[in-house]
Each structure stands twice: as structure tokens, then as C-alpha cells.
């Protein structure tokens, strides 16, 4: 290349500016897509950060529902679910399950009696590999209508401002129903006595290709016995874990899985609104919990019970929560696996 003359130097200024503009534009578009220019965007990282207690998250643990215990068992489908969904898991037959009983708290060392929300997570693995993951809780409806509202609830709960919760409740009146439930619903004595609900709506696709908006529940075979918080507390900080170890040690615990189909017009995008009791409900099978294992070296510890892991025959509906949960669970999973040294894969307490 010959040395540039003044005229050729001038002629490259235009192209150089163009090249710089293309590169800068590309970088800006990338940054924009990544949300770097949108500090208001609710990202999964923000949502997960908001779950942490003031003292910071418990490293190596799930960022919510941090206290839990693993189990293995099976889901025995009776075939009735096949009328609603072509998913193989509903065809008559048995699928192995890895699951986790848990408490809705970011504190893995919490006193069981102090936690209002109890949950169950399932990884159902039918032969053929189309697995189904679902995480359900014992609430009859979700406290808030949208993921954004859930984030605002977390922020308001953590806020030192005296009116934070009051203004949250004014903006999100649906929280009132949760408050009423939390204040009056009795505590049962056992994970085995709880009814667990998907709360989120999904679409089941039947053999004709028709979609059905559904929610599902697990109904316990064990009769509930109700306890006061004081009685439950008196039984020890890990009363629920000890109870489920004892019960399953004596014999398998079972739940009936029911699928409820919405009528047209029922709210599917808002899990804070329960559907009326008269909706068509199908018993699709039985969950049996055969064995309890401590979480530390149990099979559930490193499973992300992402509710968007669904087989063919199940789809997401317009409910915004499964997507938000999936995004947040992934962040929680990425963090706790990176912190594995803080939660070694061996049980530190005596095994059951």
C-alpha cells in the first residue's frame, strides 16, 4: 500500500466514520437487548436478589423454599388424564419420581412452625424421557396476580418505610385474601397431610389437538390433624422433617393427583384467583412417596424444579408466572451450584 496522500486521507474519513458507526450501533443494539439501558426492567437477577433476607442469602442453598428434604417414589397414572392431554405421563402406568418437601422461606435453618407456606416439588420421569417437573404449594391461591407484583411485595416486605406494605396492599388488593388465609387457616401436623396446588394454569392438549386450560392438585390420603403454632413449635424446629421421616419409615404416603379444567372465561393468567369449586375435575393418578432422604446428599438437591419443564401434551398458558419462575429458578440454580462448597454434598446431621 502506498503512503496516503492528503486527498486519499480525506477520502477514508467518510468510510472510517461509517465503520465506527456500524460497530458502535451493533454494540449499542446488543447492550439494549441485554437490558443495560433499561434499569427499570425486572430481571431474574433482581427478582432473586429481592428474595434474600437482610442478612444475605444462604450460600449454596435455593434462594427460596430453601429448607427441604428429598424423597423418591412413583406416580401411577390411571389413564383418565389422557382424555385431557397426550402427555405420556398420563397414560396408564408407573413413572419414577424424585421430589422434595419444602418450606416457603429463604432460610434453610428456619423453625418449621414459623413458615406459613409449604410445598412439594416433583420430577416425574415416565419411560421415554419426556419428563415433567412441577413445584406446588399448599396455598389455595397465589398471594399476588403478577410476577411484577410479587417483586413489589418482596421489596415492600423488606422496606423500612412505615407505609411500604400499606401502599403495596392498596395497589394490589388481592393480597388481602392471602392475609385472611394466612391468619385463619390451621396448620397441619405433617407434609403428608397437605393438599398441594399448582396454582398456575397450563394448557393440556388432547389427541384431537384441542387445548384445555387446567390447574392440578395433590390431595393427601392422610387425614389432616390440626395443631396450634405453639404445639407445632413445641415439637421442635424440624418437626415436619422428623414427622415425614417417621411416617414414610412406617409406610408409603400417597396423594391423589387431580386435574381441574377451566370453564371458558375462568382467569388463567391470574393465579391469585381460584376457580369455582364446581369445575370439572379428573383424578389422573396417585403419587406415592416411598423413601425420604436428607437433602445434602439426596437426589433432589441439585434438581431445578423448573415448572416450564413439561412434556409434549402440556404447554404454558397465558399465566405469566411459570416463565418468571423458570427465569428466577435458573438464576438460583446457577448461584447455588457455583457455591457448592458452602453446602457440601454430605449430610452433616445424623441420617434418619
Amino acid at each position, binding site marked *: 500500500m502506498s503512503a496516503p496522500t492528503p486527498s486519499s486521507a480525506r477520502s477514508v474519513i467518510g468510510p472510517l466514520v461509517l*465503520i465506527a458507526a456500524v460497530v458502535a450501533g451493533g454494540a449499542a443494539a446488543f447492550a439494549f437487548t441485554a*437490558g443495560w439501558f433499561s434499569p427499570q426492567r425486572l430481571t431474574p437477577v433482581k427478582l432473586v436478589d429481592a428474595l434474600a433476607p437482610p442478612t444475605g442469602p444462604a450460600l449454596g442453598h435455593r434462594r427460596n423454599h430453601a429448607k427441604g428434604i428429598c424423597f423418591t417414589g412413583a406416580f401411577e397414572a390411571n389413564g383418565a388424564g389422557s382424555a385431557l392431554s397426550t402427555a405420556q405421563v398420563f397414560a396408564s402406568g408407573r413413572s419414577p419420581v424424585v421430589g422434595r418437601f419444602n418450606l416457603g422461606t429463604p432460610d434453610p435453618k428456619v423453625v418449621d412452625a414459623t413458615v406459613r407456606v409449604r410445598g412439594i416439588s416433583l420430577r416425574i420421569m415416565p419411560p421415554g424421557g419426556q419428563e415433567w417437573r412441577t413445584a406446588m404449594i399448599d396455598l389455595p391461591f397465589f398471594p399476588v396476580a403478577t410476577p411484577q407484583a410479587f417483586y413489589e411485595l418482596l421489596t415492600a416486605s423488606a422496606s423500612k418505610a412505615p407505609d411500604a406494605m400499606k401502599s403495596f396492599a392498596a395497589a394490589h388488593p388481592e393480597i388481602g385474601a392471602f392475609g385472611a388465609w394466612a391468619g385463619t387457616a390451621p396448620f397441619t401436623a405433617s407434609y403428608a397431610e397437605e393438599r398441594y396446588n399448582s396454582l398456575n394454569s397450563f394448557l393440556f392438549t388432547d389427541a384431537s389437538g384441542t387445548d384445555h386450560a387446567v390447574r392440578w392438585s395433590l390431595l393427601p390420603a392422610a387425614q389432616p390433624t390440626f395443631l396450634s403454632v405453639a404445639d407445632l413449635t413445641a415439637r421442635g424446629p424440624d418437626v415436619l422433617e422428623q414427622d415425614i421421616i417417621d411416617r414414610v419409615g412406617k409406610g408409603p404416603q400417597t396423594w391423589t393427583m387431580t386435574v381441574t379444567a377451566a370453564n371458558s372465561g375462568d382467569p388463567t393468567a391470574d393465579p391469585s384467583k381460584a376457580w369455582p369449586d364446581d369445575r370439572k375435575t379428573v383424578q389422573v393418578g396417585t403419587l406415592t412417596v416411598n423413601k425420604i432422604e436428607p437433602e445434602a446428599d439426596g437426589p433432589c438437591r441439585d434438581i431445578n424444579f423448573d415448572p416450564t419443564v413439561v412434556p409434549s401434551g402440556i404447554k404454558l398458558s397465558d399465566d*405469566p408466572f411459570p416463565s418468571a419462575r*423458570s427465569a428466577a429458578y435458573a438464576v438460583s440454580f446457577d448461584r447455588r451450584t457455583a457455591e457448592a462448597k458452602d453446602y457440601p454434598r454430605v449430610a452433616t446431621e445424623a441420617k434418619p
Partner: protein
Amino acid sequence: MTVDRTHFTPLQRGLHWLMALCILAMLFIGVGMVSTITQSYVTLVSIHKPLGIAILVLALIRLVVRLRYGAPALPADLPIPMKLAAKLSHYAFYALMLAMPLLGWGMLSAAAYPIVMFGGVTLPPILPQSDSLHTLLWNAHFYLAFAFFALILLHVAAALFHALIRRDGVFEAMAPVPSHDQDLAPAE
């Protein structure tokens, strides 16, 4: 490996521009999906996984095609550092095109996630479940994605530099439409 040809073959050009589209889409989907909790999160993730595997397949085909047909020689008067940069960046592109999908696949495997393609087809895991592997691969996948995008910006800048300033035929060798202007062929 260089050949006498002044242009890449039509097959090579087709693969280049198809993959350019796929990879750019992939990188934007990647940074977009991890920054949102809206329903587009699940939609984008469900595109990201099969598109990544498609890129892996295309990259393998492209590698074979490149080994078979080679590349036109760079202009003889191109300064040595630029020649070196061109060669190294091409190695980096091939490494990233093959590594990124494999890192993603491995990362999902190590996390025991199902690796779902379009139509409900599931790929087998390529690694056992492992915290430490997941973290290692996740970090590699994440940081290399930004490196990949930076490399693409550099590549675009270099391509435009050849096209608009040096006008040495390097851009035309891979241009999306066949060039009929033989004057632009590299001087050998």
C-alpha cells in the same frame, strides 16, 4: 490452506451468511433471554437450544467444506500483522462456533435439564450431572458469548475496512452476492 480462486465457493458463501444470521440471532436471544422474566423468556430459551444445535451442525459442515475447498489467498500486499489477525480470527471463529453449542449442551447436561429441540425431541446428556462442571461451563458459555460478539464486531469492521478503504477484494471474496467485477479480485 489457500487456493487459486479469488472468491469463496457459493456453498461457502451460503454457509457464511446463513451462519452469520443464526449466530447474531443466537447472541441477541442469549443476552435478551437472561434479562427478562416475561413470557418471552421461555420462548427465547426454547429457540436458543435448538438453534444452538443447528449452529453446531452447520459449523461441522462448514469445517469440512473449508478443509475441502480452502480459502482464497489474502492480498499479497496486506501487512503481515493484518494477515496474522485475519488468520487468527478465523481460527477463533471456528473454535467458538463449535465450542459455544457444545458448552451449552454440556452445561444443560451437567444441570440435569432436558435438552429439548423443536417438536419435543430430546437430546441425550453429554456429561454427568455435576455442580462444578455446570459452573465451569456456565461461566465459559457466558463470557465467551461476549467475546464472540466482540469478535464479530471486529470482523465486521475489518470486512468494511477491506470493502471501503483498501478495496482489495477481500470483502468481495465472501460477499453475499457473486461479484462480477473482476477488477476487485486480489492482485496476485
